[in-house]
C-alpha cells in the first residue's frame, strides 16, 4: 500500500510474491489439467475457473458480470464491517478497562476467559434461536470471535506498558484521564493493532461459518449453495474472492495502524 504499481513491479522484493503465486497456479494447473491425478480430476483447473469468472455468460451463472456475485460480496463485506466495527469499539473499550482497573480486572477477567474459548460455531444455535433476525445472528457470530481477539490483545497491550511511563506521567503532573489518554492508549496501540489483524481474520472465518448455516446471501452462502449443486467452479470463485477480500481488509487494518503509529514505522526506518 502507498507505493505505486510501477515501483512495486520494478522492485525485486515483490518478485518473490509474484513467483509464489505463479508457482501455486502452475502446480494447480499441472495437478488438475495435465496429470489429472485421482481425486484431483474433480477439481476445476485454473483456466476453467478464470474463464468462468471473467465470462459475460458463465455456464454456472456466476462471474464478474453477474449481479448475484456482487450482491453476495456486498452482504459479506457489510456483515464483516459491522461486526468488525462493533468488535473494535467494544473490544478495545473492554480491553483498556480491564488493563486500566485492577478491580474491574479481578471481577471481569475470569468471565472473559471462560467465554473466550467457546468457538464461534458453537454460538450459532443460540444466536439464531435467540436473536430476532437471522441477519443479527450472522453478525453476532462474526462479531464474537473478533471481539475476544481484540479484548485479549488490548489487555496484553496495556499490561505490557513499562511502569516507568506511568511514573513519568504522574511526575509531570498528569491526572488519571491524562495518563489514560497519553500513556495507556498510545502505549497499547501496537498490541491493539495486532489484535485487530487477528480479529479481521477470524471475522471472515466466522462469517463464512455463520452464512453457511443461517445466511440467505453472502459468499459463505454462495459456497454452501454451490456445494449442494455441485458447482465446483463457483465454489472456487467464492473461495478466491474470500481470499482477496481477506487480504485487502487486513491490508487496510495495517495501513490504519501505520497511520496512527508513525513512531513505530519511523523507528523501523532507522533500524534498517
Amino acid at each position: 500500500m502507498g507505493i505505486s504499481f510501477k515501483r512495486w513491479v520494478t522492485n525485486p522484493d515483490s518478485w518473490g510474491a509474484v513467483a509464489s503465486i505463479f508457482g501455486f497456479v502452475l502446480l494447480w494447473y499441472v495437478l488438475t489439467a495435465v496429470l489429472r491425478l485421482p481425486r484431483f480430476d474433480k477439481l476445476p483447473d485454473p483456466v476453467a475457473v478464470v474463464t468462468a469468472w471473467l465470462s459475460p455468460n458463465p455456464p454456472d451463472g456466476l462471474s464478474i458480470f453477474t449481479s448475484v456475485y456482487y450482491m453476495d460480496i456486498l452482504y459479506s463485506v457489510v456483515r464483516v464491517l459491522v461486526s468488525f466495527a462493533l468488535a473494535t469499539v467494544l473490544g478495545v473499550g473492554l480491553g483498556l478497562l480491564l488493563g486500566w482497573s485492577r478491580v474491574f480486572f479481578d471481577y471481569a477477567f475470569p468471565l472473559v476467559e471462560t467465554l473466550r474459548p467457546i468457538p464461534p460455531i458453537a454460538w450459532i444455535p443460540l444466536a439464531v434461536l435467540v436473536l430476532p433476525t437471522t441477519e443479527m445472528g450472522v453478525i453476532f457470530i462474526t462479531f464474537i470471535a473478533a471481539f475476544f481477539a481484540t479484548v485479549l490483545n488490548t489487555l496484553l497491550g496495556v499490561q505490557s506498558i513499562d511502569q516507568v511511563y506511568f511514573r513519568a506521567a504522574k511526575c509531570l503532573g498528569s491526572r488519571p484521564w491524562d495518563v489514560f489518554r497519553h500513556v495507556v492508549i498510545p502505549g497499547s496501540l501496537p498490541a491493539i493493532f495486532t489484535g485487530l489483524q487477528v480479529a479481521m481474520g477470524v471475522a471472515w472465518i466466522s462469517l463464512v461459518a455463520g452464512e453457511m448455516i443461517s445466511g440467505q446471501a453472502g459468499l459463505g452462502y454462495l459456497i454452501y449453495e454451490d456445494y449442494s449443486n455441485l458447482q465446483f467452479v463457483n465454489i472456487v470463485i467464492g473461495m478466491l474472492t474470500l481470499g482477496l477480500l481477506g487480504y485487502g481488509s487486513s491490508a487496510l487494518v495495517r495501513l490504519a495502524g501505520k497511520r496512527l503509529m508513525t513512531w513505530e514505522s519511523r523507528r523501523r526506518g532507522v533500524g534498517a
Partner: protein
Amino acid sequence: MSVRGLGPDAGPKAGPDAKAGGDISIREVTKIYDPDGIHVVAVERCSLEIAAGEFLVVVGPSGCGKTSLLNVLAGFEDLTDGEILLDGKPIAAPGRPVEPGSDRIVVFQNGALFPWKTVLENIVYGPMVQRRRELGRARQAARNLLAQVGLEGIEGSYPAELSSGVQRRVEILRALINEPRVMLLDEPFRGLDAVAKSVMHQFLLDLFERTRLTMFFITHDLDEAIFLGDRVVVMTTRPCCPKLVLQVNLPRPRDHRALGDTRFLELKRAALEAVHEEALKAFRAGERELA
C-alpha cells in the same frame, strides 16, 4: 514565563533562588518492604538535609536501597517511618497517600521519554497536562530550551530516532520546563559510553550553573559523583543510610580538568575506601543469602 535561569528574562546567573526553594529535609526515614512476608528493610533511619540549590550525589553499592529512597522522595512509594519535608512542608509521612508532583521531577535510569510522542510533544507534556500555560507558548518555550542547548531541529523526531545521549538531554529538558524545585536523577547516565557520558556531565554542569536547581543524583560511579556534586554521600549497604559525607571543595564552574585535580583524587581515595567496605559487606550478605 520562562524557565528559571534559562529564559531571556533571567539574570546572567540566577544563583541560589529563595523563591524557587528546593530545600529537602529527610528525617529518620525507614522503608520496609514486606513482599509475601519476607521482611526487607531497604532504608533505615536515614536522615539527610539538602539545601536549596545544592547538588547532592548519593553513592552506594547496587541494591543498597538508594533507589527506594528516591522513590519515596518522588512520591512513588509510601514510607514506613519518618518524614520528608520540601521547603518546610511535609511531602511524605507514614499513612499519607503517595503523591508525585511536578515540583520534584524524576529523570529515570533507562530513560522515560514517551516513545509515541515527538521531542516537542514530550517536552510540552508537563505544561500541557498541568494547563499552566497556553500550549503555543509552551511550544515556544520548548523550542527555546532546545536551541539553548544546541539541539534545534529535532523537535519533530521520535525518541527512537535519537541517540541515547540526546534522549537523556531531552528528558532533562522535559523536566526543566516545569520549573521543578528538585530534580531527582536515578543513575541517568547509566549505560552511556564514556564519550556520551562526558558530554552529559558537561551538559548537566552547565545547566546547574544556570539554574541552581536542587539536584538529588544517584550513581555508583565515583568519578561522576565527585565531578558533579557539591556533596557526596556514601550509603551503607541495605538497609541504606549515610555512611560517609564528603564535601566536594572543587570550584565551580567545573570542567574535565577537575578530574586531574589533587583534591579530586584525595576525595576519590576517601570515597573508594568507604564504598569498597560497603561493597564487601553487600557481597558477603549476598553469599549468606545464597548459602
